[in-house]
């Protein structure tokens, strides 16, 4: 199974590191003004929803800052940022804040992690098949450089080389180089099309024929997984290389012993020659995937990002934009997809546009019941696992590298370890497929026990040691000052009068001041609000 590394592979690898040639654009991408598109989106949204009742009011500054910070950077705003933002009289401060966040390192890290999880959530691949850290940092770097989504997808599907050198190859090796798995993920994530059901049968309910799926798979039919020998103690990494010849074959349903050669053909009918080598096949697929004429590429991405930011999607599932599904507010989706395509798939442009809409900047509305019309506003969703971890870091004020805190990952978590330490503990407990709709994310007992009883939470909500509460008490602050501080720190807002009142009564009831304040802190960390984006 092992093969020596060849010069050709290294050359191919350099190519993928330096970036594949950009889309053959006849003219430089037009860049529609975000503010203008945001206004048109808002108008189209209200038209589509036929909203008659009064609209939700604009969200207050402090809630907006928490929402947009979590969405763009995955982190809570710090108390001083909150106060500064609330006090800022500049009418353009929200736009300025969005731009600050979009150029921050945290933005790149947050969305790099998001894509890492989307692309690898379902794989049981061990470290030899999936160089998790390398793949993550490559994705973070793509976001940091605001590389076009078309170029990123091209790099992923055309990658060649060894996976501990050439990061995007991990997209393929993490799926064991299996063309069927890779094709299914590629169509699901990049096109929002569920082809894999057609792998086995032509179901009446499925829009795709079995043959169409296997023709799609054939684009990967000459990509070969190769295991490498252990070189200088780095394990046995895997590579993807081109196969000299051979055809991907589909089993004949009438005679299972008979296999049929499949010619690579895209869903819209374009085919490449059966003689085409691996590189040509996959380059052709990348062109077809990312072509402005492809009806699904931009829609799948726009629907996914809208869902992540708004808490509800045009389509119920980001995985399924199939022909048998009817989207909500089609006009809005079409508008955004067309304008985003015109930018050359500029990821930052879409974030800027979406966060500038009035829809995004209105007060929260609850999730609509299944099949009911969505609100022209954001719906709550539970934070993603690393957003929860970052929120804990900021709120509790601990050092991630603190080895004195035990970090057992729940034993019911998947077999493959990804992170280490405290981050691993929290990540594994809250781990969830980022492609899952918000209303399908459920709490579990290991999560509750971690938040209630873990040494981590209980050490840092305590009023002794090097903790926030211990400091606050040592500085001689009043109960009310401390409770206000805890609210800012934990929920990124001020306590309301009735909440202050409840905490005051609680302190009086418990008697022991230190203990009661610990309880308040603990309770805020354990509130629903703490783990939700709102």
């Amino acid at each position, binding site marked *: 199974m092992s093969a020596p590394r060849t010069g050709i592979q290294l050359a191919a690898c350099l190519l993928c590191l330096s970036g594949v040639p950009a889309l053959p654009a006849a003219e430089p991408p037009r860049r529609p003004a975000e503010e203008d598109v945001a206004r048109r989106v808002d108008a189209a949204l209200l038209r589509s929803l036929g909203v008659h009742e009064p609209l939700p009011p604009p969200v207050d500054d402090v809630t907006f800052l928490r929402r947009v910070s979590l969405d763009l950077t995955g982190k809570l705003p710090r108390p001083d940022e909150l106060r500064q933002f609330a006090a800022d009289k500049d009418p353009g401060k929200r736009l300025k804040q969005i731009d600050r966040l979009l150029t921050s390192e945290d933005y790149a890290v947050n969305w790099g992690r998001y894509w890492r999880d989307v692309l690898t959530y379902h794989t049981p691949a061990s470290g030899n098949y999936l160089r998790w850290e390398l793949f993550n940092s490559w994705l973070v770097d793509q976001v940091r450089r605001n590389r076009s989504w078309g170029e990123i997808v091209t790099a992923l599907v055309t990658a060649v080389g060894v996976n501990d050198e050439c990061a995007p190859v991990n997209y393929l090796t993490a799926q064991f180089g299996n063309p069927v798995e890779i094709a299914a993920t590629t169509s699901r994530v990049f096109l929002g099309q569920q082809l894999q059901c057609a792998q086995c049968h032509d179901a009446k309910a499925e829009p795709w024929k079995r043959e169409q799926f296997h023709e799609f798979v054939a684009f990967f039919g000459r990509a070969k997984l190769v295991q490498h020998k252990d070189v200088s103690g780095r394990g046995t990494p895997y590579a993807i290389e081109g196969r000299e010849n051979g055809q991907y074959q589909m089993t004949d349903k009438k005679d299972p012993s008979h296999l049929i050669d499949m010619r690579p053909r895209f869903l819209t009918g374009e085919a490449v020659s059966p003689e085409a080598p691996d590189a040509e096949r996959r380059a052709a697929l990348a062109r077809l995937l990312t072509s402005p004429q492809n009806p699904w590429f931009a829609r799948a991405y726009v629907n996914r990002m809208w869902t992540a930011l708004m808490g509800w999607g045009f389509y119920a599932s980001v995985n399924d934009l199939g022909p048998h599904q009817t989207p909500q507010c089609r006009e809005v989706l079409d508008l955004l997809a067309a304008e985003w395509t015109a930018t050359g798939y500029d990821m930052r442009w879409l974030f800027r546009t979406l966060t500038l809409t009035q829809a995004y900047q209105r007060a929260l509305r609850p999730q609509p019941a299944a099949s009911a019309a969505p609100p022209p506003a954001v719906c709550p969703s539970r934070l993603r696992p690393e957003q929860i971890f970052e929120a804990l870091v900021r709120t509790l004020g601990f050092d991630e590298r603190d080895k004195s805190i035990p970090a057992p990952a729940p*034993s*019911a978590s998947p077999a493959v370890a990804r992170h280490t330490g405290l981050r691993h503990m929290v990540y594994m407990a809250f781990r969830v497929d980022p492609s899952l709709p918000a209303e399908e994310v459920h709490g579990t007992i*290991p999560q509750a026990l971690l938040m*209630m009883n873990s040494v981590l939470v*209980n050490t840092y909500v305590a009023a002794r040691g090097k903790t926030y509460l211990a400091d606050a008490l040592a500085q001689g602050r009043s109960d009310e000052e401390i409770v206000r501080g805890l609210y800012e720190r934990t929920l990124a807002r001020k306590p309301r009068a009735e*909440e202050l009142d409840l905490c005051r009564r609680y302190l009086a009831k418990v008697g022991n001041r230190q203990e009661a304040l610990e309880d308040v802190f603990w309770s805020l960390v354990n509130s629903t609000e703490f*783990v939700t984006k709102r």
Partner: protein
Amino acid sequence: MTPPNVYTRRELLGRAGCGLGLLGLACLLHEEGMLGTAAAAGLGSRALEPMAPRQPHFPGRAKRVVWIFINGGPSHVDTWDYKPALARWDGKSIREFDPTFKNTTGFFAKQVGALMKSPFRFTPRGRSGKMVSEIFPHLGEHVDKMAFIHSGYTESNNHSPALFMMNTGFPRMGFPCVGSWVTYGLGSESRNLPGFVVMSDPKGRGLPKGHAANWGAGFLPGVYQGTHLRPTGQPIDNLVRPAGETDAAQRSQLDLVKRLNELHQERYAGEAELTARIESFELAYRMQAAAPEAMDLAAEPAHVQKLYGLGDPACDHFARQCLIARRLLERGVRFVQIYSGGMENQRSWDGHIDIKGNHTQFAGETDRPVAGLLTDLERRGLLDETLVIWGGEFGRLPIAQTGAKPGRDHNPHCFTAWLAGGGVKGGVRYGESDEVGYKAAVNKVHINDLHATILHLLGLDHKRLTYRYNGREFRLTDVAGEVIHEILA
């Protein structure tokens, strides 16, 4: 700040529900029919109280399941599938018996030996006279309770895919296991314990291949995944509240959380559902007390401990797990799975080397405890409603795997499993393997059929127990599966 909304009845209920837990609140909302159209369609209750007991599709004979997973692949011809003809074929090439035999059937293509008779003596047991291997002196007493399936077959000869196949119906990772489907379908009778519990080898021999994916919920909501009791140390992470914290203190903290959440919900209509969906504090709180109580075997009288084999160094570890299983089932847990053995080779029933020594050891670890469990369940009147399953991920070949002490290699073409208890006809056998036990031959049973039968015994129609994921309705049995009516009581 926006002025407070006019209270809806739901919000008033939330306010009035000071003494109710979050789950209680959700339950109350459900009972009051306050959850709108989703609840009316039967979806709301599952979304809010995913573990609430639910009616089966039709009255099921079994209410709960304990699955003794014979991890590594038990050899059917050395345990329950008596093959006298194998003595005649002993020493002959399997190609004389079956010219289509391929070296790739097993795992070790270069250690293919001749057909090999069982090293164990078989004797007739029970009224049914079932021939049973000498390695099961205690379990042999219970054959009249068991329905044997001798014609099982699977799709992979490799441990992980075969374990996934047996647990989820698919030879790949990422699908819900039987325990998850069952708790999704029926909820749990316990409000204080997880509905689906898994125990693995406590003797440091590792987890079954594929690890937690074997008790994962796949695309079902995470609440349906098996709760794995750690074999050493704290059985459940963070189960013990921090040192020095009293129950009363924690209760008071949780009540404060509840009040804070309620204040929040008064302001934001429609968030009771969100809270109920993503929080599990009340169950977690109750579990802190209930789980250690359920696992405290000191509460069991000496004669019961002895019945399971506690204190016997050969089987004490498995006896404890079987007794914990009974205590969990008694307390309303829906599904318990116990793995015998750890990882592959000599750490489980994976007898590549020295089948005699391997199976003698692992049968010795489990025979008395499982027999004790059957006796105890019966004495307590629980067996009628408890489905007991014994089986592994595949069988083993009737040929020797060559070596200093002969072993047997993997055999995906044939295995034996037995069912007993709730709704199962005792003392019967279904299906047959061929003369030497190489392949399932008569009334072959696919794993989809076995799964369909397990669900049927619980009152669940395997064709109606579905979950929509990725735009398609999924089932445990994919697009196949026939209930084996012949083994139903």
